[in-house]
């Protein structure tokens, strides 16, 4: 019976080995007429982010909390990495599962280092190994260990606390992480940045993550696979974000996604997935005449000035150069804005473009080096391709021959 769900979702990307398997999982609270979670069967592949999303009260959080048995199931089985953990010692089980909640719940009377050391200590690591692990994790979440190790949680900002929460959940190097609306209590700008940081981190650590949210946009952005849940934690659809946006299984899913499925697809593609364009660049300190040569050789109005580390410093145009002939290149022209990293979604890139009022976004790598640019045209092109591909997949078996193009034309 579980075969069916997993084959349905394997159309896009073949799922890896199953890491978590929920078999007929149920939670019936006493004195409640209906079960909170009703006979849920779900397979979660190793190394993927699976999002449980649904309206409030659908049982998504209850479902997640049954995996580490914060809430004890009343029926069914939980299989973790091939082992039935339904009756295992919950404390031992939880030490193997990272846990991040919306309120984060850092221990206020312990320093950041002590907070992160909690699980390693429970696992009985020696002090040296724990110390090294604390520094490593703080660096992973972009917080300087020497600055933050001995601070207390109240001395951190909301975003920093959230980072420490993630670091703490990763401390025992668990294969599985449970995250309950981890970015829910953070302002939108910081949230976007933390989401991107988290995706970059996940690309390195490849944990199996069960992620609960009520926000379909977050689900689409963060998820390798999304389970849309109805009341009683019944699965309305369990599939990749592309498939859910392209081929909603029923009205409930279509309603839940809401309008603007095309635009939501922008959250599915990342800057690194599309072909970056190149732009005329010059090194800081070059002669103005050289810059004019570069501009003449291209069809663009501006050249991008890079410094010694190849970080973007300035946009300069021919009039800028003529007006201020003797000033260094980094003091004329316009400051570069709309800078994105490769793991940013096209939606982020588009947002940056619109906010900065520029026609191109500069792409830099993690250390800030120039990689290329993304413009409106490449974004529209990406949407077109995505739509064609998705529609083709949704119509597998419907079209006898090669009518994919036609299908794409009638697409929404």
């Amino acid at each position, binding site marked *: 019976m579980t075969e069916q769900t997993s084959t349905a979702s394997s159309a896009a990307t073949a799922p890896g080995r199953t890491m978590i398997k929920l078999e007929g999982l149920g939670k019936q609270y006493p004195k409640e007429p209906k079960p909170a979670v009703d006979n849920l069967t779900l397979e979660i592949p190793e190394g993927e982010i699976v999002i449980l999303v649904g309206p409030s009260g659908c049982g998504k959080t209850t479902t997640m909390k049954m995996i*580490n048995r*914060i809430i004890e199931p009343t029926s069914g089985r939980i299989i973790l990495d091939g082992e039935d953990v339904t009756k295992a010692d*919950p*404390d*031992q*089980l*939880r*030490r*193997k599962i990272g*846990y991040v*909640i*919306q*309120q*984060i*719940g*850092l*221990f*206020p*009377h*312990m*320093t950041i280092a002590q907070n992160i050391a*909690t*699980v390693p200590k*429970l696992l009985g690591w020696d002090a040296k190994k724990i110390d090294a692990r604390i520094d490593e994790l703080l660096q992973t979440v972009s917080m300087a260990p020497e600055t933050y190790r001995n601070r*207390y*949680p*109240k001395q951190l900002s909301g975003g920093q606390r959230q980072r420490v929460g993630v670091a*703490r*959940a990763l401390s025992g190097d668990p294969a599985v992480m*449970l995250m309950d609306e981890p970015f829910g209590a953070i302002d939108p700008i910081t949230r976007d940045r933390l989401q991107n940081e988290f995706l970059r981190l996940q690309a390195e650590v490849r944990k199996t993550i069960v992620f609960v949210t009520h926000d379909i946009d977050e689900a689409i952005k963060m998820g390798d696979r999304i389970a849309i849940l109805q009341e009683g934690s019944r699965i309305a659809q369990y599939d990749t974000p592309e498939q859910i946006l392209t081929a909603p299984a029923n009205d409930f899913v279509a309603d839940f996604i809401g309008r603007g499925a095309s635009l939501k697809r922008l959250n599915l593609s990342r800057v690194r997935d599309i072909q970056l364009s190149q732009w005329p660049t010059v090194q800081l300190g070059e002669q103005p005449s050289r810059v004019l040569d570069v501009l003449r050789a291209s069809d663009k109005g501006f050249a991008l000035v890079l410094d010694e580390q190849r970080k973007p410093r300035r946009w300069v145009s021919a009039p800028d150069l003529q007006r201020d002939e003797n000033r260094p290149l980094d003091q004329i022209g316009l400051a570069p804005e709309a800078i994105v990293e490769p793991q940013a979604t096209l939606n982020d890139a588009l947002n940056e473009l619109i906010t900065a009022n520029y026609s191109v976004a500069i792409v830099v790598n993690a250390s800030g080096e120039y990689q290329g640019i993304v413009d409106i045209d490449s974004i529209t092109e990406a949407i077109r391709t995505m739509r064609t591909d998705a529609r083709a997949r949704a119509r597998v078996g419907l079209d006898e021959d090669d009518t994919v193009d036609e299908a794409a034309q009638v697409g929404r």
Partner: protein
Amino acid sequence: MTSSAAPGAPDLAAAPQAPIAPVRRERRSVGSYVFMPIFLALVCAGLYLYVSNQELDTIEQRALNAGNITAALLEHLRLTAISTVLVILIAIPLGVLLTRPFTGSYRGVLLTLANIGQAVPTIGLLALMGVGALSFIDIDIGVTAAIIALVAYAVLPVLRNTMVGLQQVDESILEAGRGMGIGKFGVLSRIELPLSVPIILAGVRTALVINVGTATLAAYINAGGLGRIIVAGLSTNRITVQITGALLTAVLALLIDYLAGIAEDVLRPKGL
């Protein structure tokens, strides 16, 4: 002490909402640390000058000599210390038990008992305890009776503050702890209790001050203490003796409150 201490008040069965003893949020300035000892020293010096300038008769001399005052002071400290330690040993574990989910049904009954302990007039409780003691004229039994009365009277603030302290710990912090695989006892000892320390200590400080004051009444059941000097002054109608006993009790109460305040500041976990 507070209106909710009346027996039979409707909120008894409910969990306590507010601590009885308030918690100071701010750490004190250096000035406030220095002021109290200087003030108390000045009061003692003034008292000494006043008494040594008086012509003392034999009754006064018997009451107001260094040996007798020191003995009374030590008795008083002993009563206070023993009863406060007992209060801590009873009230904190009880408060922990009463905040565990499985004791839900006993919570109301025990809180009512603790409330009654505080609501009954102290002197009545002391007299009751002392009935047996006086008939034997045995100082140890008097002391025992006094200590029982003091404990009954001072359990409530520590019990309430322990419960409130444990209940005010943010639920999400506990969930994070349990979710990381810290056992129930570990969550209690490493998270809940440290985070309740400021509130529990405020309760202990209140209990201490109550005990220092109430221990003066122990003299009526032959259990000693500074009350002995006051009672002697009253029964012989010697104002100097009465003033000395009362002032020394007040100085001791303020000093102990001051020391307990320092202990609160030192023992409060960093980061709170």
